[in-house]
């Protein structure tokens, strides 16, 4: 029988193609479960999971918590704002204190890239990375690919463009790894200042003309401009960004084909995507959110089954 090749989910970079397929097949079953009238299974009733968030999050945190509860795990939540981290405690001390309360798995979001990897080397619990700085956000990439697979039947051979702030985006990096692993063609599109140098070395192509990119693709994943991460001005004004890299209905209607629109949320309506696009039938944004719970249930179930 199949099992994951890893003990932790630190990034897509550490997974292989079989892992991704196993996660998707398991998520199929959980998607059926969460559409029942009783949306809960008892599998993880003897597992305790700590959600440790050193950075703000609503959707990811809710999605993880819901996934854990639907697997019947015991859940404790911790956010850095109300904690001893403020009093100078180190990351390892904080987590070890939590683990001494007999916690089996840690879901962590942290502003520093590599925080999950660092932690996995120093503590005994199974670690799930829920976003580490501008590095990776593996469950988001998994649910994005899963949503593409659900909508288009397969990810292999599809053309996917990721639009926006590629430089600061963990969603972009994890998506690139995941899509390439499954044999999709990936293009990144955005202002030159927000495209990392040498990004081609990851096997993606670069385009700065949004219309060309959209005409090429089957799926466009629109990223949010993360103003909180922009330390300097990367483009003159938000208005100018919207004119060049925002998607509106008129632009979509002028393309040769109907493309699928995705967005990891939260949406800045009227900036990277207009409301009529976000709410159109081409958009699978809310499917992504629903699939997020199924994917996280699959990841947690598969990792938990390796805890002895």
């Amino acid at each position, binding site marked *: 029988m199949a099992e*994951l090749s890893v003990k932790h989910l630190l990034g897509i970079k550490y997974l292989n193609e079989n892992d991704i397929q196993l996660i998707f*097949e398991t998520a199929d079953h959980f998607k059926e479960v969460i559409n029942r*009238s009783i949306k809960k299974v008892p599998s993880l009733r003897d597992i305790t999971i700590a959600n440790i968030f050193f950075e703000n999050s609503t959707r990811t945190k809710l999605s993880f918590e819901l996934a854990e509860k639907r697997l019947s795990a015991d859940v404790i939540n911790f956010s850095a704002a109300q904690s001893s981290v403020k009093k100078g405690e180190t990351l390892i001390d904080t987590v070890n204190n939590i683990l001494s309360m007999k916690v089996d798995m840690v879901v962590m979001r942290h502003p520093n890239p590599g925080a999950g990897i660092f932690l996995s080397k120093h503590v005994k619990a199974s670690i799930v990375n829920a976003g580490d700085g501008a590095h990776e956000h593996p469950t988001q990439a998994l649910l994005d690919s899963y949503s593409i697979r659900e909508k288009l039947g397969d990810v292999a051979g599809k053309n996917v463009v990721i639009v926006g702030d590629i430089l600061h985006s963990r969603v972009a990096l994890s998506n690139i790894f995941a899509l390439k692993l499954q044999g999709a063609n990936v293009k990144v599109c955005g202002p030159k200042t927000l495209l990392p140098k040498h990004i081609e070395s990851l096997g993606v192509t670069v385009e700065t003309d949004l219309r060309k990119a959209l005409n090429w693709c089957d799926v466009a994943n629109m990223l949010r401009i993360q103003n909180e991460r922009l330390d300097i001005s990367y483009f003159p004004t938000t208005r100018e960004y919207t004119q060049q890299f925002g998607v509106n209905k008129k632009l979509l209607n002028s393309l040769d084909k109907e493309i699928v629109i995705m967005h990891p949320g939260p949406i800045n309506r009227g900036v990277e995507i207009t409301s009529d696009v976000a709410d159109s039938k081409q958009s699978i944004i809310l499917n992504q959110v629903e699939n997020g719970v199924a994917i996280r249930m699959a990841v947690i179930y598969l990792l938990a089954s390796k805890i002895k």
Partner: protein
Amino acid sequence: MSQKVLLSEKEINIILHRLACQLLENHLDFKDTVLIGIQPRGIFVAERLTKILKEEYGVKEIKLGFLDITFYRDDFRRGDKTLEATKTKIDFLIEDKKVVLIDDVLYTGRSIRSALTAIQSFGRPSEIELLALIDRRFSRHLPIQPNYRGRQVDAINNEKVKVLWKENDGEDVIYLINK
């Protein structure tokens, strides 16, 4: 490892017909009854019985579903391997229905215990019955007995009952395998 034939194709066929008749006796038109095959191997028994009831006994409509019990099992993390799920397909309501759980081999009873928990996620049935093609006597871990049994077998613990089906394995036969 040695194996002997426990039941041949002909014997299996006779037993399936008897089980179909017994179900018919208790449920008549199957209006308020649903058949649930337990994944992965109970579904073949359930499909065969449905076919016989429809084609040979003229039952017009039978609600047939498949239930995966993986997430309800009591041995999660107890073995070396990840428990892999199969598909659940129950596209009808079981509220107030008579449910017949169907499996190929009844051994420790733990799968049936899981199935009894799992089925509750789909509503509150008016009653639940159990049909097992092979009932391994003296090996139960839980107080569970079938309402309909195909053949009772005395098998010891290092023996295994293997049920093969034409549609899945190329032939209809049941082996008793000595490991």
